[in-house]
């Protein structure tokens, strides 16, 4: 936890309820987080978990129903102007002007933050170098590729050298190559001392990029820590076995494998058995041997390192991918049987 002077953001019991035809919807239900200066902090969760709503409250775009939020040293509800001067925000949509060039967009943005034309010009060159925009900075944004556009969006968010940069789903819609490229640029920004807060439903993104994350579900924080800490809590590797003959096999498998000393946790779901073991590589042959010995046929066996999805599953009882957010972030090796 970060408290006192080294915290870039501290929220306490943040709440937001939206009216709707079916009655009020509690989008954010008491989110308390503390984000240290210079961290890359991720809010991970499925669509509709309340990530964007939280971000919009922190960036003064949405009023706060209850709770408090301090961003860059100022109270968001009481001193929104002070907060706006110190933060950058890149929305899911970006919001660059299509008919203007990248450079024109950046110059206007800088001037809206109070810089003179003479001050903003060298800054734009600096940003063009930092985010590799120079090549296309003088073309109209309409002609940009997805990756180019996203880098411009980030540049727009940091024109005024904010202490905290908020990014809402920064890599949604980017191909893997451009995604990795943006991650590199965000890491470089972090090295310059910027605190970065981002939302994502990509497990891999939270894993690779973030120093610390909170997992958000139904408007509440369900887990908090570094990706490594969170995964360690799941203990070991995950193995999923799909049975050939559903019920009998699953029931017998549960009894048979649950007793093995190397199996830390086991659960059955439909025709699937899900196991957590210490060393997946060593466990797989052993599992095959046991099942084969009892003549239990299996369709497949999948081994994966624990992912944040396993963390999510453990905390919420649901898979992040089942919630409609999935992007196949699980790197599995499949063994046909």
């Amino acid at each position, binding site marked *: 936890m970060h408290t006192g002077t080294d915290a870039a953001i501290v929220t306490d019991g943040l709440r937001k309820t939206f009216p709707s035809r079916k009655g009020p919807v509690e989008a954010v239900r008491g989110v308390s987080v503390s984000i240290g200066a210079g961290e890359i902090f991720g809010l991970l969760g499925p669509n509709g978990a309340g990530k964007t709503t939280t971000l919009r409250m922190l960036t003064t*775009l949405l009023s706060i129903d209850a709770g408090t939020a301090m961003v860059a040293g100022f109270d968001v509800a009481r001193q929104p102007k002070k907060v706006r001067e110190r933060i950058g925000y890149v929305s899911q949509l970006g*919001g660059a002007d*299509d008919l*203007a060039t990248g450079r024109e967009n950046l110059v*206007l*943005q800088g001037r809206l933050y109070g810089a003179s034309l003479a001050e903003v010009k060298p800054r734009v060159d600096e940003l063009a170098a930092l985010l590799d925009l120079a090549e296309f900075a003088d073309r109209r944004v309409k002609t940009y590729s997805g990756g180019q556009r996203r880098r411009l969006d980030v540049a727009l968010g940091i024109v005024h050298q904010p202490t905290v940069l908020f990014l809402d789903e920064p890599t949604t819609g980017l191909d893997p190559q451009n995604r990795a490229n943006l991650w590199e640029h965000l890491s470089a920004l972090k090295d310059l001392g910027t605190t970065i807060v981002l939302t994502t439903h990509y497990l891999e993104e939270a894993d690779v990029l973030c120093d610390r994350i909170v997992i958000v579900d139904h408007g509440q924080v369900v887990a908090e820590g570094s990706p490594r800490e969170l995964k360690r809590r799941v203990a070991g590797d995950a193995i999923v076995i799909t049975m050939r003959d559903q019920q009998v096999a699953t029931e017998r498998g549960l009894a048979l494998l649950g007793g093995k000393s190397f199996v830390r946790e086991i659960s059955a779901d439909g025709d699937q058995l899900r196991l957590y073991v210490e060393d997946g590589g060593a466990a797989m042959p052993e599992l095959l041997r046991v099942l084969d010995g009892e003549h239990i046929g299996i369709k497949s066996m999948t081994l994966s390192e624990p992912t944040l999805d396993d963390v999510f599953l453990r905390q919420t009882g649901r898979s992040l991918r089942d919630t409609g957010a999935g992007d196949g972030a699980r790197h599995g090796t499949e063994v046909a049987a």
Partner: protein
Amino acid sequence: MRTARHTALLMQRQFVQMLRNPVWLFVGFSTPLLYLVLFTPLLKHFTAGGSTGLVLDVFLPGILALLAFASGMSSGFNTIFELQSGVIERFRVTPASRFAILIGPLLSGMIMVFVFDALVVAVASALGFHINWAGIAILVVLLSLLMISMAAFSVATALVTKDISAFAAVINGLNLPLLLLAGVLLPISVGPTWMRVVAHFNPLYYAVEGARALCSGSFGAAAVWQAFAVLGPLCIVVVAWATSVFKKAVA
């Protein structure tokens, strides 16, 4: 001071956006000319004397008010587009004043309309329209009030509805009755009593009547002060409302 600077910056931005949109420019210039070319001939029989110049003296002030009204009422379409493309959200996170974010683009839209107007008046004058320069000067102020009122209303409606079809339904639903009850194309005085009564609740009616009086040089006419008495306060109220809508959450 800061608000003025931000307003100027955002006005300038909108100008560039408009000038780079050839379709928009074409429609902007051609619409008023189409009214002149395709409607004026029809009116000849309704006007004593029947000369094109006399027809235009009655009809052109109405067109100018109509252009101002229509341009103002359609401002929200751009707002919807900018809401959906994230532009407005990007500006709202900056320290720029909310008033500037609202008014900047409207001012540039207004200036463009006056450019179109100048062209129409020039063409009309070549066709025999009698220009009263003092009247035109005061008319610019009156039409500015009308345009800003309608534009602020339209933008606020866009911010509330957030969605193109709902917004279009509201605006189109209002456009037609307001136009028909304003005497834009034919003076409302030829209509029955109830129509004349209802027209008095229509701000566009006052703008049209005021515009006709100003263009004919009758500065002392009741229509002139009535137009300002209605549109001045209306403008202040609508802009204040729109600014407050802007300040509140725009999800």
